[in-house]
């Protein structure tokens, strides 16, 4: 099972570089690391940095030809298009992987010491 997310051209994958920060990008960045830590095969490609991935994938290339870059992001699961124009949520990921949402949430260290 492989999830691939094709982002629009971004300065950075978390959106913190933009003129104002888009929470959807932060959510996506967090979900991405959570899924990776849970052992899910998930990849993100940024059009501004990894255009090669967009060209090599026939589905994505066709998507761009038909709908243009403004229609991104597009999400593929095992090569098939599942989402366009929005990022997946944890529910989406749970449905695709057949795992529970909790199972996809790595344990945060409990006993953090605050120095503030």
């Amino acid at each position, binding site marked *: 099972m492989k999830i691939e997310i094709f982002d629009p*051209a971004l*300065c950075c994958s978390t959106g913190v570089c933009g003129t*104002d920060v888009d929470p959807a990008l932060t959510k996506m960045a967090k979900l991405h690391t959570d899924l990776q830590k849970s052992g899910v095969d998930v990849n993100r490609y940024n059009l501004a940095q*990894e*255009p090669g991935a967009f*060209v090599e994938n026939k589905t994505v290339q066709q998507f761009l030809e038909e709908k243009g870059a403004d229609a991104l992001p597009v999400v593929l699961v095992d090569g098939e298009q599942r989402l366009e124009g929005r990022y997946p949520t944890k529910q989406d990921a749970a449905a695709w992987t057949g795992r529970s949402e909790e199972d996809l949430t790595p344990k945060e260290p409990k006993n953090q010491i605050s120095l503030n």
Partner: protein
Amino acid sequence: MNHRQLEPSDFHHTYMFFTGKGGVGKTSTASAAAVALADEGKQVLLVSTDPASNLQDVFGLEVGSDPAEVPDVPGLFTVNLDPEEAAGRYRERVVGPYRQLLPASAVASMEEQMAGACTVEVAAFDEFTQLLTDDSLTSQYDHILFDTAPTGHTLRLLQLPQAWSTFLEENEHGASCLGPVSGLASKKEQYDHALGALQDGAKTMLFLVTRPEQAAAREAFRAGRELDTLGIRNQQVIVNGLFQASSEDPLAQAWQKEQEEALELLADTAFSYIKLAPWNVTGLEALRAFFQDQEQPPAPEIEKSTAAGGLQDMVDVLQTRERGLFMTMGKGGVGKTAVAAETAAALAASGKQVHLTTTDPAADLSQFEALQSENLRISVVDPQEAFETYKEKVLREAEGSLEESELAFMREELDSPCTEEIAVFQAFAALAEEAEDELTILDTAPTGHTLLLLDAADSYHRELLRRHSPQADAVEKLLPRLRDPAYTMTAVVTLPEATPVEEAARLQQDLHRAGMYPAWWVVNQSFSKAAVTDPMLVLRAAAEQPWIERVTALAANVVVEPWKTADRRTLSQAGSGAGL
């Protein structure tokens, strides 16, 4: 005192950096050292990292992005690491291969994304570290000299290897903000290597170039300490332009005294000095004579003083405005702060309500505070503070839509080198918006930095139009505001010398490209406008004439300000009415 005249033998390290406030003579000193080394038969590379390189003014030839030998100096190669050009090359490397493979909308969005300040900074830094670490390149030269950008920018550039190495180590999500250079983490070794070279006292010497004046000496001190904390302790101070009065001319006496007082700041520092030259250092002949004592030519007749008026001409125009921006622009060290402060004080003295503000991290705040009055409100945009405020604002706005763990993630991501740039930019946009209600006098950050921001404005602008972000109204309206001559009045500030005038001319060109047309030029610190009689000062006054003429040809309106001692520079005309 523990000082002596600078000698060519002072330059023997593999890497030599020349840093200091703009206009102190970094380029002249670095160029003279490079010529001297090449004349000894060494292979020398002279690098400019300034967005507006002035190596070409000194050598009288174009300096490109590939090392090229200077025709009359065998063994001397020059190269300019223009950040804009570096970014352009980098963009083309990434985008070029996909022009035929991806639809136009995708290529356009890639280009737009890579037009920002982030890419520029990253690309320039990348080239800089390549010069420091590429053995095949460095082995060709006995010495590599860096004529670095003005101080604020230099420090950032030099600080980056440290900041980024730390950032790459601490950020487990993989340095997302450094995105514009793909695979950046893989370059960590190169960056560590670059920092190592900078800290290596056997290989590297950092020359802090300064003038014998308070502000420049303090700046050199500050820069030295800051670099010291980065582990770059191999520093040497060079005081450029030491003047000895040879007459009873009160201005000459005052200047010499002022210089002596400024040098007391360096009493405990070993430094070497260069005597004031009776002419501007341009061309090979002047560079080769740089380290020798000059025989003073006979003083010429004083040329007729320029017909240009004083600051009051500009103030008279601003008097008629109830709102909008007045900005001073120019390289560091030309007196932007003084002109802004003096203009604001003159307006306040005549009963006008004004807001005086600075975004220059190197601004001398005491100059500002002394001016505060009923009519004159003063504020400072501190980049660090703006950064913190921006981070808090972003996190507050995200609170509603993000979980706690996501917020923590975002907090970590926001601590990146690029976020600070955006924060300062937004603060600038907010100031331009405040000017809707109040006449605002803005002393801008140094040229290179400002231009990066202005250039970024266009891509920000487009991005925002696309995203319809409500809180970004100020950013969206920034460029239209700056382009509206009825809203924004810009004064280009310069000195009557070759390099400052050429730099200001390039700044004006860049502004024109951005659709901004400076209404005024201010030529600051003119000896010919002051009544000097000292032979050396008369020579300097004569050397000013071609540059004042050049400014007159370039400018819509010209102001020439007479040379003043430091204590009178800000408060001269306005002091009496500024509520002091």
